Each structure stands twice: as structure tokens, then as C-alpha cells.
């Protein structure tokens, strides 16, 4: 689905007169391969380049160097912009950047309409997507008059309605309440499992990483670690050096080990920790 070969991205900073003030190399030689149907988590410190990488995947930006293919399309080729945006739907970090229309259901229908989906289908898709995020009640509201989490749900619905091959969520669940977050992740996981939709989940919430098949850790524009969540979470010290951490259950497991309790290594979920503790008892 995605193939990146040594991509570099540089932001060019200019002063008021337009003179180049500085060049920031924000992506510094990223290479990776994501297969269709994989569920990927991307984690990394603030400013490590996650959102910049995501914008490259959606062709909002194009790499300064290196090559990037999305769904077999080379992102160098301007002609591919539209096709790439149809196959990869992105939910931005701040939903305000995504709101286009003054009515929720039109906002959600905007994507499919632009893709040339027949009108009857659009309404069906909009309804399904709003139901999936539990926002159908608000279909005729103005998105600007919604709470932070409600806006975020609408933004997610907008991408679901596009039925893209790949969904990129840039901290898209961060403002949701605990149940809403759980439901959204389950929806996303179900799309991934049932319809083989590729998922790229950018998150600061280590509990969400557990849902992924594979994790990439970004640090100052580079991918410094990759592996299954289980592999990534074996190394607490390395994660902390990257400003990251473990999920709560695994922190507790490590604390218990420090006290000499013989908890099985390589755990991932709270359920596994509970089983491990019960075995000792």
C-alpha cells in the first residue's frame, strides 16, 4: 500500500521579504513498507515528524528527496494527486482544519460527492458514517457549534464515508471520551479486519498502540525502532529516551518485577497481566 524509499522532507523558513531564513530537515531518510490491510501505529516525540510524514502520504506535501509510492502511484507525479487523496483518507490533528461545510451531513458527504459517488449512495454513506461515530442526532447542526469531541467525531465520519483503501488518523481520537475512543478504535479495527483497509494510526496514547500489527517509532525525523507492539514495549528505557512510555498495565508489570515478583516477560495487555498475576497466586 505504501512504499517509502529514503524520503527527506525539508521545510523552508522565509522572512517577511521572502528570503530563506533557514531549512529544517524534518524527515531525514525514512524508508518503510506497509502492506495492504496492515494496521500500523506511528509514535514519537512532539516535533518528531509524524504529521509531516502523514501529509506526505496524502500528497499535501511531496518529499524533498527520495521516492514514495502510495497504492502503486508515485507521489512525484502531480497527476496522481487526486487518485492518492481518494485512496488515502486522512483525519487531521485539529478537526477545525477539516471542516468545510456549515451543516454536519454536508460536511461528511463532501468527500464522497467529490469522488463522484451517486447521490443516493452518498446519503447512505453519510448516514452509516454518522451512525458509526454516534453523531446522527447532530446531522443538521453546524459543525462550528459542536464541542471539541463532537467535531472530532464528524471529522472521522467524513473519512469513513469516503471508503478509502487507507485511513490515516493523526491523533484523531485524542479529544474523545473513554467510551467514544474505545468505540472508534473498535470501528477502525473492524474496518481493518473485515474490509482489509490499511490503517495508519498516529498517537500519543500508548494504550492505543496495542491495536496495531506493527509500530514505527520516530525520533528527530528518523525511524529508530519498528516491530510488533509486544517487541516495542519490551524496552522501557529506550522508549523513555524517545519521550515515550509503556501502557499502564506494562508499567505495573515492571514495577512488580522490580519487587522480585516473577511476572512472565513479553506481556502486552491488561488481560495478560491479570492472568500472569493469578498464576502466581
Amino acid at each position, binding site marked *: 500500500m505504501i512504499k517509502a524509499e529514503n524520503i527527506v522532507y525539508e521545510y523552508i523558513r522565509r522572512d517577511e521579504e521572502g528570503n530563506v531564513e533557514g531549512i529544517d530537515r524534518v524527515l531525514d531518510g525514512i524508508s518503510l513498507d506497509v502492506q495492504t490491510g496492515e494496521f500500523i501505529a506511528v509514535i514519537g516525540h512532539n516535533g518528531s515528524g509524524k*504529521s509531516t510524514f502523514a501529509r506526505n502520504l496524502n500528497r499535501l506535501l511531496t518529499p524533498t528527496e527520495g521516492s514514495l509510492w502510495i497504492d502503486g502511484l508515485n507521489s512525484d507525479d502531480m497527476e496522481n494527486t487526486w487518485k492518492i487523496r481518494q485512496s488515502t483518507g486522512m483525519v487531521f490533528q485539529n478537526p477545525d482544519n477539516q471542516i468545510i461545510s456549515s451543516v454536519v451531513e454536508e460536511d461528511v458527504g463532501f468527500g464522497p460527492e467529490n469522488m463522484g459517488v451517486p447521490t443516493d449512495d452518498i446519503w447512505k454513506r453519510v448516514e452509516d458514517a454518522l451512525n458509526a461515530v454516534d453523531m446522527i442526532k447532530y446531522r443538521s447542526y453546524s459543525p462550528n457549534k459542536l464541542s471539541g469531541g463532537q467535531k472530532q467525531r464528524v471529522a472521522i465520519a467524513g473519512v469513513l464515508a469516503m471508503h478509502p483503501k487507507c485511513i490515516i488518523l493523526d491523533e484523531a481520537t485524542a479529544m474523545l471520551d473513554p467510551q467514544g475512543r474505545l468505540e472508534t478504535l473498535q470501528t477502525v479495527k473492524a474496518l481493518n479486519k473485515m474490509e482489509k483497509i490499511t490503517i495508519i494510526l498516529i498517537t500519543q496514547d*500508548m494504550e492505543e498502540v496495542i491495536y496495531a500489527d506493527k509500530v514505527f517509532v520516530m525520533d528527530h525525523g528518523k525511524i529508530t525502532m519498528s516491530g510488533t507492539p509486544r517487541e516495542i514495549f519490551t524496552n522501557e528505557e529506550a522508549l523513555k529516551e524517545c519521550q515515550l512510555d509503556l501502557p499502564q498495565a506494562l508499567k505495573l508489570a515492571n514495577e512488580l518485577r522490580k519487587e522480585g515478583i516473577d511476572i512472565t516477560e513479553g506481556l502486552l495487555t491488561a488481560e495478560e497481566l491479570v492472568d500472569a498475576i493469578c498464576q502466581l497466586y
Partner: protein
Amino acid sequence: MSIILDKISCKYETDMINEHYALKCITAKIEDGEFIGVIGHTGSGKSTLMQILNGLVVPSGGSVYYNGEDIHEKNYNLYKLRSEVGMVFQYPEHQLFETTVFRDVCFGPKNLGWSKKEIELSAFEALFQMGIESELYYQSPFDLSGGQKRRVAIAGVLAMKPKVLILDEPAVGLDPMGKRNILDKIAEIKAERNCTVILVSHSMDDIADYVNRVWVLDDGKLIIDASVKEVFSHKRDLEEIGLAVPQITSIMHMLKDKGLVVNTNVTTIDEAKMEILRKLR
């Protein structure tokens, strides 16, 4: 000195036929130096309540008394109120507007009539406390990553040294270590200056780790006003209104369901560790 909410209600005009009450008859009192956590499902009224506290939204019923004075009275000096009651918005973009990060952080204190030196000192201190690298000080705040913007927005409010600090989801988008550091820093500042802090959060773990008292909002009503331990002992009730208990508490419940007789009224990793050790040794 205190803040009193006396039967606050708030009605929003929606485009619908029905008007919508975002807050319904909220009565509560905040003493100086308290650390209050506010939780509630998406759209439950948290942000609306916070904006009422700092005079940005006028309630449709009831009054807010700050140090004995009604802040929505005609002659009340709202300007002075906002210099004492600092607020970090749910989306940091809503409060960044200057041309450089440093100027942005200076903006608040500038309005307080301090000397240039005091203003700049306070701004540097706040930027440092929020872990913002000095390379970013003279860049545009709009060219920052999501987490960097969040840090600058918090710094801008801290630089004013407010007596009451209202934080609407301040930790969203921060990397795990950054979040720890920043919340620790806020707790430290609170202890030093004996200011009041109100923290709105969807992270039950953060609420458990930092606050003394919790308000639970459900559909515009304040349904619980109690200590952390008390609030998180109502697992089922919280789940019914879209919330949850902290991860750690939920692990204790899972242990109990497996037949291990543990105290489930545990909210932090340390407490959980002690409780499990007590059972295993």
C-alpha cells in the same frame, strides 16, 4: 477567596427548533488552592462551564461569584478577572496569533502593566518550564507541530502567573514524557504559588494522578462532586455515562473478577503495586 457557582445554566441557540441546555443548574464552590478535575462525556458541557468561569460565555441563568463579586454584573471588571483567571483552550490554535512564539508568550503579561524586563523574564521562564527548545522561540507559532503549539499555549497562560489556572484538555497531543513533565510542573507551580487549578481531561489516569477533587458532568448536570477515590469507586455508573475508571483501577477489578480478593479502590500504579504485593507475599 473562592469561586462560587450558583445555579448556573447555559442555553445555546441551535439551528433546530429545540433550544439546547448545555448546562443545567450547576451549583458548586471552589476554595483557594484546590486542584479540581472535571470529567464528562463528549458534549457534556465541560468547555462551556470553563468559559463561563472566565467570563467568556455568559450563563443564561445563575451567577458566578469570584471573591464575593458577581462576574457577570454590568460594572464588573472582566479585564481584571481575565488577568487573574488564566485559561488554556481545548484547541491551542484558538489562542495563538502573534508572529513569533516568544511574542505570543509575552502577549498575556504585556497586558498586565509589568515592566519589559518582568514580562520577558516571565515569558522565558514559562517557555523553559514547558520544555520548548530555544530554536523555536523566534519561529511562527503556526509552523509548529501540534504538541509544540500546545506547549506554547500553556506557556502563554503560565507567563501571566494567574491565581486560577483553567486547563481544558492541556495534555492532549503531548508526548508521554512531555505530558508527565508538564503536569508535574503545573502541580509544582500550584504548590509554590498556592493557586487554584481546574483540569478538564478525558484521561482518567491523569485525573487520578493529579487532582484532589473531581466534578463529573453528565448532559449538562453536575452529578458527582467528590474525592478521586470516591468518584472512581463508581465504575458501573461512570461507564454508563461514557466514562471509565483509570486503567489501574480496571486491572484491580479484573483481578477481583478472577477470584483474587483485592481492594479495587486503587487508582495509581504505586497503590496497585502495594496491594498486589500484599496479596502475593
